[in-house]
């Protein structure tokens, strides 16, 4: 794509060397006017190689700074968690001790809490998100399409701490007084809802997480479904399928890799979500036995205890938890992005 432009761009420079050599070096090297060098540089119509090279080098540096940021975060987290890595080794992630007083740390309850809340949230969010995506791409009247997608995007723009505030004052009482007893009464036989219901706990955290990841999953799934060529839909419909059969065979089957990517992207967001979860999960470093019992997640233990961590081992344990969270979300996001790209790359070209 860019090669014809470059050749066009370079031609005048090569065929017209007098103009280039006349203007640029004189203006760049010997500023005669009282203008500042920066201003003069911007004013100059230089077509010299120096300006172009400098400019593209600056742009390249900024692009490389993204690599640098990731590598730097990785380096600094490893460097600061060395103490706990050397003291506990890999067993850090399988031990369930969390005792700041005696300096004994293990991250298992947090890993458990993070996985449990994220998976529960996915369980609630995925069917709903796919329903919304299907509705928006296939069923929705054209007039409603823009407002509904706007509203779901607004849902994504609400800050995490506001979700947390709402959860603390609305969702927690609701869970304690209405939803909790209801679940205990009718689904108590599953043994999932045993124990005392405080209102805060795994289930409440999962519900607020589900609300938060819904817009992400549904908007990406919508984009992916839109990337499925119209001809696929027409083909299935022409064979006499109902609309649902068209959606199932023509759309969902073609978009399934991308939809899995969208779900994993939602998982990545759920794993790292901090504030809202911290406010409603109960913050208790024990492996929860029921959905009502308070738990802890990797992100919320950092948010809660980092600023009051006393002692180097305590601090470096918390940083190691951050490191684990960083690596896990990087891997999860990389997989998800690769899947989403596999579907949407080149798809617009085929779509029309």
């Amino acid at each position, binding site marked *: 794509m860019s090669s014809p432009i470059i050749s066009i761009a370079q031609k005048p420079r090569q065929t017209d060397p007098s103009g280039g050599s006349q203007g640029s070096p004189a203006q760049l090297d010997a500023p005669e006017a009282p203008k500042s060098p920066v201003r003069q540089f911007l004013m100059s119509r230089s077509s010299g190689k120096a300006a172009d090279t400098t400019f593209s080098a600056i742009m390249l540096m900024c692009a490389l700074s993204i690599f640098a940021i990731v590598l730097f975060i990785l380096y600094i987290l490893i460097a600061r968690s060395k103490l706990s890595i050397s003291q506990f080794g890999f067993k850090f992630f399988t031990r369930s001790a969390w005792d700041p007083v005696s300096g004994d740390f293990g991250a298992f309850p947090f890993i458990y809490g993070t996985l449990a809340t994220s998976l529960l949230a996915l369980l609630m969010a995925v069917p709903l998100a796919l329903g919304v995506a299907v509705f928006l791409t296939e069923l929705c009247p054209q007039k409603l399409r823009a407002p509904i997608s706007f509203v*779901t995007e607004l849902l994504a723009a609400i800050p995490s701490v506001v979700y947390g505030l709402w959860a603390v004052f609305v969702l927690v009482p609701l869970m304690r007084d209405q939803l909790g007893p209801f679940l205990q009464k009718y689904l108590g036989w599953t043994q999932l809802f045993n124990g005392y219901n405080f209102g805060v706990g795994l289930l409440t955290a999962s519900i607020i997480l589900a609300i938060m990841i819904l817009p992400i999953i549904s908007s990406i799934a919508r984009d992916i479904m839109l990337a499925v060529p119209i001809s696929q839909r027409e083909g299935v419909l022409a064979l006499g399928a109902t609309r649902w059969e068209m959606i199932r065979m023509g759309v969902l089957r073609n978009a399934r890799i991308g939809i899995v990517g969208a779900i994993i992207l939602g998982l990545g967001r759920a794993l790292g979500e901090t504030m809202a979860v911290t406010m409603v999960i109960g913050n208790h470093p024990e492996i929860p036995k029921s959905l009502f019992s308070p738990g802890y997640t990797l992100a919320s233990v950092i948010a809660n205890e980092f600023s009051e961590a006393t002692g180097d081992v305590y601090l470096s344990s918390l940083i190691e938890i951050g490191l684990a969270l960083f690596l896990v979300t990087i891997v999860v996001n990389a997989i998800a992005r690769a899947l989403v790209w596999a579907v949407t790359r080149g798809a617009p070209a085929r779509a029309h």
Partner: protein
Amino acid sequence: MATNPFHTLPPPQDFAAGASPTQQTSRRVRLNRVRRHLWNHVVTGLAVLSTVIVIAPLVAILGYLIYKGASSLNLAFFTHIPAPVGEPGGGMANAIVGSGLVLGIASLMGIPVGIAAGVYLAEFGRGSWLASAVRFTADVLNGVPSIVMGIAIYSLIVMRQKHFSALAGGVALAIMMVPTITRTTEEMLATVPHAIREAAYGLGVPRWRTVLSVTLKTASPGIITGCMLAFARVAGETAPLLFTAFGNEFWSLRLNEPIAALPLQIYVYAISPYDEWHRLAWAGSLVLIVLIMVSVTLVRIYANRGVLKGAS
């Protein structure tokens, strides 16, 4: 297409003639059709229902927020600093100003770097493996939890300086802005038609000049949109500020000291046991959300008005 592709298919009568038209099969066919159409309606209903379920919490959250926030919002909220525990009144003036300051630092650092990286991806590195790698890294960095940014900046700046500072908070937010801005800038630059660039090159305009005054200018509405969206996203971030800006009960405009920020203050007040502070948390949330929504909506209107479309 001039030729109808369906002409190659056998006419539909052949199918009917091929199947033995006994009563049993025709009833089975009819039952099958009823089942399929029933299923179709069920799934349609489910999709509509799930959309309603998804919209419901938004309406609930926004409605409750406006109800609680509007009833606790007053002028003192914007002009006073927090009152000590037990005293009524007080506001979040310092937090609003602090948020502005931290966000200003973040924008000052994040926006130029983000745009420049986007320019590299779209103009200089198009198609190269390096650009793909940068793009991928930006997407991945976008998904890194904000709390991790918080502890990374804590380890980098706060631990060195031995105290929390507004500057550290700004750096943490700037890092979060970069990937979003990079990706939107790249996408917006990709929509600029080649003819415009070629016209500039044809006039002998050097490449850097073309990028600055032609390509970026043409794509500027979209790029501004991207910057505003990134800004709105980090404006509500609490986690990266917990250990960097830290929060402050008093007026502070110094970059080298802990500073109050609106989301931080909301968090602290929300988990406090005092009703008066809860009231302030609701008011703060309303202010925060109105700020974010207004910027997002403005951006949408601005982007939809099609300055970009007109240009291209």
